[in-house]
């Protein structure tokens, strides 16, 4: 069956039906000029004969003609399956409204009155031609198979896609994989639509193919069929569904579908069965991702997923629910023994080295377990509880599993509140700096103050640094706090005597970016404090994280003239190595070596070695945590340059350290057990222009 001419070709052939030979002749001449071939008929009978024997794209029809007139011919054409959509332009000398209305309601495409306005005639024909072309293009390219059927079942219109969906051409490569409707199926539907039933169905075909079909009865009899190959849409939809519920990297379920799985299992758990939700977080994954790149990290995650999957039963369910976080549902009648056993196996399997791109990678996993119905039957709560338990495993040394306990929830709530308060504190500047003096042992004089931050919480009172600095680092506000400390300490120190420096601690996280040198520069500029009166103290842990980058940042800061001190010296395993890598100005010997100084020969040996080493390298030493006069005397004897600790003074607010600069005022030196000592323990004396401290301490 062929596609009707008027929709399959350009406007190429017109039939002029007019009893006026001259008008036909003029019309022919005119249409020839735009490339249209013209056939002529002098009345309706002749026109019908022409239409039967020729392919006609357009009819120009006079109304008043002998034998079959224009109205009659129009009626015949519109009732004819083949010609019912053929464009017909009526051209007549009858300029009455009745004539135009009758012609248009009879199916004329347009109506023109003679004598023709020749200026308008050409554009009019072109417009009709464009409409014909546009209809053809639209129908042929609509992507749907479309067919119009007459009441008797004959086809009055159909496009190529319709034919394709009825029967694919095996010789046409592009049609080999096409979905095709079966003739029997079509026949059955056509019988029903003939009876006036509207049908809309999707036919599922082999190999995931599908065709959407509709059969719509038309008012004047006949019906419209529209079919669409929706195989691609189906595949796309399935992919979208898959991506919505799966992790594309590992192919495991994602968090969203995992929660649904928990709901499903909780709802279907049999009497006596318990559901364990295991929350796994990989240990030491981040350094691998950071140092070897995401490609290696991704491969590692895939292998982790495979190993985990190998350890669970078919009825258990597994998901990747975050970057390096996985979760498993285990339904068992023996809980928590079943979950414990599985958790142990999982830890063991992840502990075994992974071979990826020539790298032998060792990681671990920390697991938290929540049980249902014991801990909750709400999927989100179960997952959160397992997560809380996982954090317990992390904090207790990793590569272990922990069960959820209600107190964990309370601790988490407390932590969340503290987190909110801390963010508020940063914006409201609820912090204060306390200063602890560092004393030169040789001259008994004040060298510097170490700035130590305090948080004055409006309801909790004063919060110790150890209780909020790790949290500040975790929630990403440490740089903001660090900048504030720098600015405030420099500002305070700028008001002190020129001989007194200020030491500021820098968090390891402040060394991750490139902002610290700029922050130091800004603080110095704003305060006008000479750079050499500022010391930046850095711990070994900061050096451990990206040593080269950290050393580069330190170098930039030192180049400003700022002193660099290594804090907590001796507590790390490569302290000496760092001394070789960077020209520190000072090292601070950790309190752990000072504590036993008076009773432990090993401590004495270590401190002497450090002091000698530092002296040899031209680095000053400060002993931290000095609390007794014995410690002070030993440190002086061992060659240590400075002391800092409660023997001299506890950290004090800015308002209370002014007396250190006033040599006429006697000082309070607060030893370890301050309450048992007299209030006033020492005095300051000027020595060579510097403030000298004379310390009196308990006998």
């Amino acid at each position, binding site marked *: 069956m062929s596609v009707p001419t008027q929709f399959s070709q350009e406007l190429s052939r017109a039939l002029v039906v007019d009893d006026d030979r001259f008008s036909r002749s003029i019309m022919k001449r005119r249409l020839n000029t735009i490339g249209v071939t013209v056939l002529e008929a002098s009345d309706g009978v002749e026109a019908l004969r022409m239409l039967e024997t020729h392919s006609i794209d357009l009819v120009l029809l006079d109304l*008043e003609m002998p034998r079959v007139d224009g109205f009659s011919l129009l009626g015949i054409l519109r009732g004819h399956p083949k010609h019912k959509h053929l464009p017909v332009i009526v051209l007549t*000398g009858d300029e009455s409204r009745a004539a135009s209305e009758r012609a248009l309601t009879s199916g004329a495409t347009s109506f023109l009155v003679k004598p023709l306005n020749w200026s308008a005639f050409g554009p009019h024909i072109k417009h009709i031609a464009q409409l014909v072309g546009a209809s053809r293009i639209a129908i042929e390219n609509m992507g749907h198979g479309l067919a119009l059927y007459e009441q008797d079942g004959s086809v009055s219109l159909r496009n190529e896609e319709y034919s394709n969906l009825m029967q694919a051409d095996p010789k046409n490569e592009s049609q080999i994989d096409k979905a095709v409707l079966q003739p029997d199926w079509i026949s059955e539907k056509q019988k029903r639509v003939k009876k006036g039933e509207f049908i809309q169905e999707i036919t599922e075909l082999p190999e995931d193919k599908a065709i959407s079909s509709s059969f719509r009865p038309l008012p004047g009899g006949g019906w419209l069929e529209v079919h669409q190959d929706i195989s691609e849409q189906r595949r796309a939809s399935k992919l979208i569904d898959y991506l919505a519920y799966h992790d594309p990297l590992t192919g495991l379920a994602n968090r969203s579908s995992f929660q649904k799985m928990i709901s499903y299992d909780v709802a279907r758990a049999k009497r006596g069965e318990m559901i364990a939700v295991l929350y796994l977080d990989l240990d030491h994954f981040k350094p691998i991702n950071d140092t070897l790149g995401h490609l290696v990290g991704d491969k590692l995650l895939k292998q982790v997923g495979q190993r985990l999957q190998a350890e669970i039963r078919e009825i258990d369910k597994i998901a990747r629910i975050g970057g390096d976080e996985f979760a498993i549902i285990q339904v068992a009648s023996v809980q928590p023994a079943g979950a414990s056993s599985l958790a142990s196996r999982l830890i063991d399997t992840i502990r075994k080295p992974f071979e990826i791109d020539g790298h032998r990678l060792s990681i671990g996993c920390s697991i938290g377990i929540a049980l249902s119905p014991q801990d909750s039957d709400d999927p989100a709560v179960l997952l959160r509880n397992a997560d809380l338990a996982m954090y317990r495993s992390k904090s207790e040394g990793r590569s272990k599993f922990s069960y959820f306990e209600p107190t964990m929830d309370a601790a988490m709530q407390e932590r969340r509140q503290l987190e909110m308060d801390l963010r508020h504190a940063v914006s409201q500047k609820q912090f204060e700096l306390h200063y602890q003096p560092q004393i030169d042992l040789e001259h008994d004089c004040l060298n510097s103050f170490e700035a130590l931050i305090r948080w004055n919480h409006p309801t909790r009172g004063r919060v110790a640094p150890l209780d909020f600095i790790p949290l500040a680092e975790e929630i990403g506000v440490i740089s903001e706090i660090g900048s504030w400390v720098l600015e405030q300490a420099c500002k305070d120190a700028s008001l002190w005597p020129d001989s007194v420096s200020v030491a500021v601690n820098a968090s390891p996280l402040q060394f991750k970016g490139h902002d610290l040198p700029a922050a130091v520069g800004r603080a110095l500029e704003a305060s006008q404090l000479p750079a050499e009166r500022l010391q930046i103290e850095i711990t070994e842990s900061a050096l451990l994280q990206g040593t080269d980058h950290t050393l580069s940042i330190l170098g930039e800061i030192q180049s400003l003239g700022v002193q660099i001190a290594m804090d907590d010296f001796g507590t790390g395993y490569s302290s000496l190595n760092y001394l070789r890598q960077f020209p520190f100005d000072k090292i601070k010997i950790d309190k752990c070596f000072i504590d036993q100084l008076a009773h432990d020969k090993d401590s004495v040996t270590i401190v002497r070695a450090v002091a000698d080493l530092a002296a040899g390298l031209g680095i000053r030493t400060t002993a931290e945590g000095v609390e007794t006069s014995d410690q002070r005397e030993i440190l002086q004897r061992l060659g240590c340059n400075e002391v800092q600790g409660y023997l001299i003074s506890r950290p004090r607010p800015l308002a209370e350290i002014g007396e250190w600069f006033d040599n006429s005022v006697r000082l309070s030196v607060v030893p370890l057990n301050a309450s048992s000592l007299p209030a006033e323990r020492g005095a300051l004396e000027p020595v060579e222009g510097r403030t000298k401290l004379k310390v009196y301490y308990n006998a």
Partner: protein
Amino acid sequence: MPDREHEAEGLGLDYSTCEKVLDLEQFRELVEDVGLEAVPYILGEFLIEIRARQEQILAAQERSDTAELKTIAHALKGSSGTMGAKYIYDASKTLEITCVNGTWQDVAHAAEKVSREIVAAESVLEALAAVE
């Protein structure tokens, strides 16, 4: 009417000759649409048409066939309108209407009027067709 004269000149025709037969504006539109080179052809075709119609009118008059005269008048109205032959068009239109409403005497008068206009147009159209 200098504008009309100008139009006639543009078509290579003599204005005073044209205006005896044609509505020059209608004729110009037709020429512009089909092309100047088609003018002799169109004029020739029109001459054939009106001569044939004149013969048909005379035959119908002899038979006193009002219906046939109406059909001829309608066709002639169409072709003369298309051509812009305004006097033939007007006479044909009158004949067509008279065939419906008038007496045979009125019809005969109207038919004679059409014939006279055709005769008057022939010589002019022949002259125009000869213009190169």
